[in-house]
């Protein structure tokens, strides 16, 4: 086991992972989910207890909150669903299939009902009447919290959950993917890449960020040929890399690797940032992302899709 694998496995000793390295911290749904994703590809490392934790803390609506007892379900449902899907793919023996499938069915149901809907039923009827069926296919993504607006990151996480390791082939899933792909493409920054989702406001254009660009790219591997995807890859490849941040380097490595682009520069910079105890960055979430990025050198990247899809056609 490598130092970083050891560090992360130790964090899961109670079956869950906090965000912070400080002692006495509580469970984080997101950090636990990414720790599972980072470790699940290695069959010698068991993430059973972490999976049991996620399933046990799934809310009655099928989603997850940022931590047990912290309000209603929110955007962390995307990473949690992704963790379950990848665990089912890489280590199906860990949890009884029936239990896993039930949990996933509820999770999908939650994600598909969580999507942002701007127009009331009357407005949608009007749109249908004026523009025909094609007018109903407006861009729709996912919010950070229920009843709020679409943003790039929750949309990216939910898309990854629906597309990885393989595309969710249910009709509703495909429809959600189509509209969410459209949302991301329409919200790309001028010149390439993505920020949080506000590429322009009051006449001003805002720049992209490396982290959000990489996340969106990982969510759009099924439509790699799209010009905005290519522009985003160009941004990641040519962006100034200050090497300050393990998070941006880890995400960039994963995204470039998923598109078969060279990521050796990013990986090298990431490895220079490893802390003495094997961790990366300021918390377990970034450590998990970094482990995932390092694993690409062994040809392992669970965020690469397993097959081509035609989800952009409707």
């Amino acid at each position, binding site marked *: 086991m490598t130092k970083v694998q050891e560090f992360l496995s130790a964090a899961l000793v109670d079956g869950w992972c*906090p*965000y*912070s390295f400080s002692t006495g*911290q*509580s469970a*984080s749904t*997101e950090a636990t989910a990414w720790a599972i994703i980072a470790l699940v590809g290695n069959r010698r490392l068991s993430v059973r207890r972490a999976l049991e934790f996620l399933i046990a803390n799934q809310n009655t609506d099928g989603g997850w*909150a*940022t*931590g047990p*007892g*912290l*309000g209603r379900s*929110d*955007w*962390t449902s995307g990473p949690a669903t992704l963790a379950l899907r990848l665990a089912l793919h890489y280590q199906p023996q860990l949890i009884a299939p029936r239990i896993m499938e039930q949990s996933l069915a509820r999770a999908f149901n939650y994600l598909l009902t969580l999507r942002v809907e701007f127009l*009331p039923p*009357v*407005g949608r*009827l*009007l749109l249908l*009447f*004026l523009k025909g069926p094609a007018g109903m296919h407006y861009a729709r993504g996912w*919010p*950070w*919290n229920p*009843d*709020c*607006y679409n*943003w790039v*990151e*929750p949309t990216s996480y939910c898309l990854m959950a629906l597309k990885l390791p393989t595309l969710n082939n249910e009709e509703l899933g495909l429809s959600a993917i189509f509209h969410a792909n459209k949302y991301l493409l329409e919200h790309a920054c001028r010149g390439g890449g993505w*920020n*949080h989702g*506000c590429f322009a*406001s*009051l*006449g*001003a254009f*805002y*720049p992209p*960020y490396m*982290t959000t660009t990489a996340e969106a790219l990982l969510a759009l591997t099924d439509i790699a040929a799209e010009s905005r995807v290519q522009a985003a890859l160009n941004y990641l490849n040519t962006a100034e890399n*200050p090497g*300050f*941040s*393990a*998070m*941006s380097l880890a995400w960039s490595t994963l995204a470039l690797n998923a598109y078969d682009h060279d990521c050796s520069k990013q990986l090298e910079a990431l490895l220079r940032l490893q802390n003495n105890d094997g961790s990366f*960055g*300021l*918390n377990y*979430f*970034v450590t998990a992302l970094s482990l995932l990025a390092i694993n690409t050198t062994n040809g392992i990247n669970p965020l690469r899709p397993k097959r081509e899809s035609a989800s952009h056609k409707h």
Partner: protein
Amino acid sequence: MSEKENDKIKRRSFLQASLASLTLSGCSTTQPPLVPKLPEPREEQKIGRRTAPSVVGILEAKSYADDLFAIIKAKLPQLKIGDFKGKTVVLKPNMVECPYKAPITTRPEVLRAAIKLVDYLGAKNIIVAEGPGHMRDTELILATTGIGKVCQEMAVPFVDLNLDDCVKVPIKHSFTTCDHFILPKTIMKADAVVSLPKMKTHHWVGMTAAMKNLFGIMPGRKYGYPKNFLHYGGIAHFILDLNRVIATRLSIVDAIIAMEGDGPINGTAKEMGLILVGIDPAAVDATCARIMGYDLSELDYICVAGQVIGNIQTSEIEIIGPAVNEIAVNFKRPITYGKDKKLSEKLLHAQSRSDIS
């Protein structure tokens, strides 16, 4: 085209137009306003408002290279800040995102001065904490703002409030529709919270300073990046509720280089050469607004803060330093706070819910 086809098209157009007008008329009477208006505060919301006169220090500092701690220390007797003896103090700067071109964030020199100040005033534990609003990459922001370096040099821990352990905090008589907030434990366990904002214009609420700075306390792990939930419920409403739940002990405003124009992100630098210091965040913000050339009646949340948080009238605020009317300048306004009131309101209502802070 045959007569029959022509008739079909005419009938279809007529039906489309009729249905459109019917549905539109249905929409217009039932759609809620896009941005909830700030209501007049109720009596129970005014309980706890500071009533004693406030003191606001307007301290001149030509540049960030000046000894800012010494400048503040020299005025301590008049500023009536009190002390922080034995207390755990959290310093909350503005680190909303990487300052890629504009003076977006609190400068590290101001943070350094604040650390020295609270240490001088007897703080037992000092923590720097912030939950950046637009980016999850706190490590990057710490590096690019220089705040991480100050924390390291002064051996003060930094807590990312976006990822901190959280607790449910009930809100009584709220302005928002929330009966509770989920807030970071670091803030709730602190004996004193010090707001260290940047003086900036703000295209949704006019300006941002001591009170709006508390948005960075709401954890992104729950409310997202950006914290759209706060916009959706009404920015002004959340500013008021947050400042009623978290009573900041002190505010130190970085106005050496402020921001004007399309703030709080896309504005331009405005050299003011000032640091503002005060215990009452409403008084500090009202003074900032006057210095920026605003009439307080243009800033809803400040008007209401004058009834529920602290003092905003000049008669209730003692200024230590130059008179406001001697140093006030007309900051370039965001177009949402321009002279064309109708256009401003239209823009405000159209965008503020779906946009960043």
